[in-house]
């Protein structure tokens, strides 16, 4: 008897959600699968840098006869997963249901470009605005709308500690969400600033981690906005010898890098 192992790996914020997502995708009841928890996940600091839970679901073929689903249509043929509300990544060796991109429509991009252009026009800033979808590096999320602003002398749009850029992004996100009728993850960049800044922050994180180890003392970084602190936490998440935490109140919240005992 060929013991066919059909498995599906699911990643989601919690173990329970991962199992529920996986069952939804397979279209199977809980008792038809074996669940193996590969990674229970962790919350991380302040919801940042947490690991997602990972489970592997194995279909129990042996019991298929008893539960009497029609043999011609194996239960693997699942109904289309509801991607809208279950944006779980699946790394499935076998029954990968066709993944339709949620929010992958042109209309949302058009709205995003329009809203950002409208804001800039009223701020008396002349610039070119384009938008596209990017996949977030941290798995699991739906694609993010990336709005690029290009033009001359746009440092006024970034501001101190990227305050202006973050305000623009926040307001644009609210308006786009309302016009699109649902929350849309959206990022705004000016002349590639965020990318450059992220590279700098990663380097800074590694350098300060070195220093923390070298001196044996905690290193306190400059105050940063939340999205920048997140980059530091993520960069050092896998580091064996240091841990990171954020201390202080906004807008003076700082990452500290602490050597592990």
């Amino acid at each position, binding site marked *: 008897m060929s013991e066919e192992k059909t498995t599906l790996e699911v990643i989601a914020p919690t173990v329970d959600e991962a199992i529920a997502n996986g069952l939804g995708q397979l279209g199977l009841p809980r008792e038809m699968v074996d669940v193996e928890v590969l990674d229970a996940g962790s919350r991380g600091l302040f919801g940042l840098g947490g690991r997602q839970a990972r489970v592997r679901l194995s279909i129990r073929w042996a019991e298929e006869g008893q539960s009497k689903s029609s043999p011609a249509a194996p239960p693997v043929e699942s109904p289309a997963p509801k991607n809208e509300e279950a944006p779980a990544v699946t790394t499935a060796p076998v029954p990968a249901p066709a993944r339709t991109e949620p929010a992958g429509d042109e209309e949302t991009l058009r709205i995003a470009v329009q*809203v950002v252009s*409208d*804001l800039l026009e*009223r*701020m*008396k*800033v002349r610039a070119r605005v384009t938008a596209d979808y990017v996949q977030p590096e941290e798995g699991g999320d739906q694609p993010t709308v990336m709005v690029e602003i290009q033009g001359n002398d746009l440092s*006024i*749009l970034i*501001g101190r500690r990227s*305050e*202006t850029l*973050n*305000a*623009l992004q*926040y*307001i644009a996100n*609210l*308006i786009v969400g*309302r*016009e699109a009728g649902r929350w849309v993850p959206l990022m705004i960049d000016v002349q590639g600033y965020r990318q450059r800044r992220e590279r700098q922050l990663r380097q800074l994180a590694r350098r300060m981690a070195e220093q923390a180890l070298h001196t044996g003392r905690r290193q306190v970084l400059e105050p940063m906005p939340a999205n920048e602190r997140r980059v530091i936490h993520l960069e050092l998440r896998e580091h064996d010898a240091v841990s990171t935490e954020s201390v202080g109140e906004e807008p003076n919240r700082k990452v500290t890098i602490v050597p592990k005992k």
Partner: protein
Amino acid sequence: MKELIEYIALSLVEDPSCVQVRQERSGGNKIRFELRVCKEDMGRVIGKNGRVANAMRVLLRVAAAREGKQAILDVVEPR
């Protein structure tokens, strides 16, 4: 500057009928704006911990700087 506040407010409220932006010069290059919205929409233009209002102030600062001015924004309770 006024158009910026109006645009953002109108885009965020449920009821556009009471959105009103009043502008008063408070001497020199300072300008004060008063934004009024319906009572039910106050939360939408202020936000948790004033986050929306503060973001509007940051953007308003850019618009004002373009004209060599300083601007203040107050969100006012409807009468």
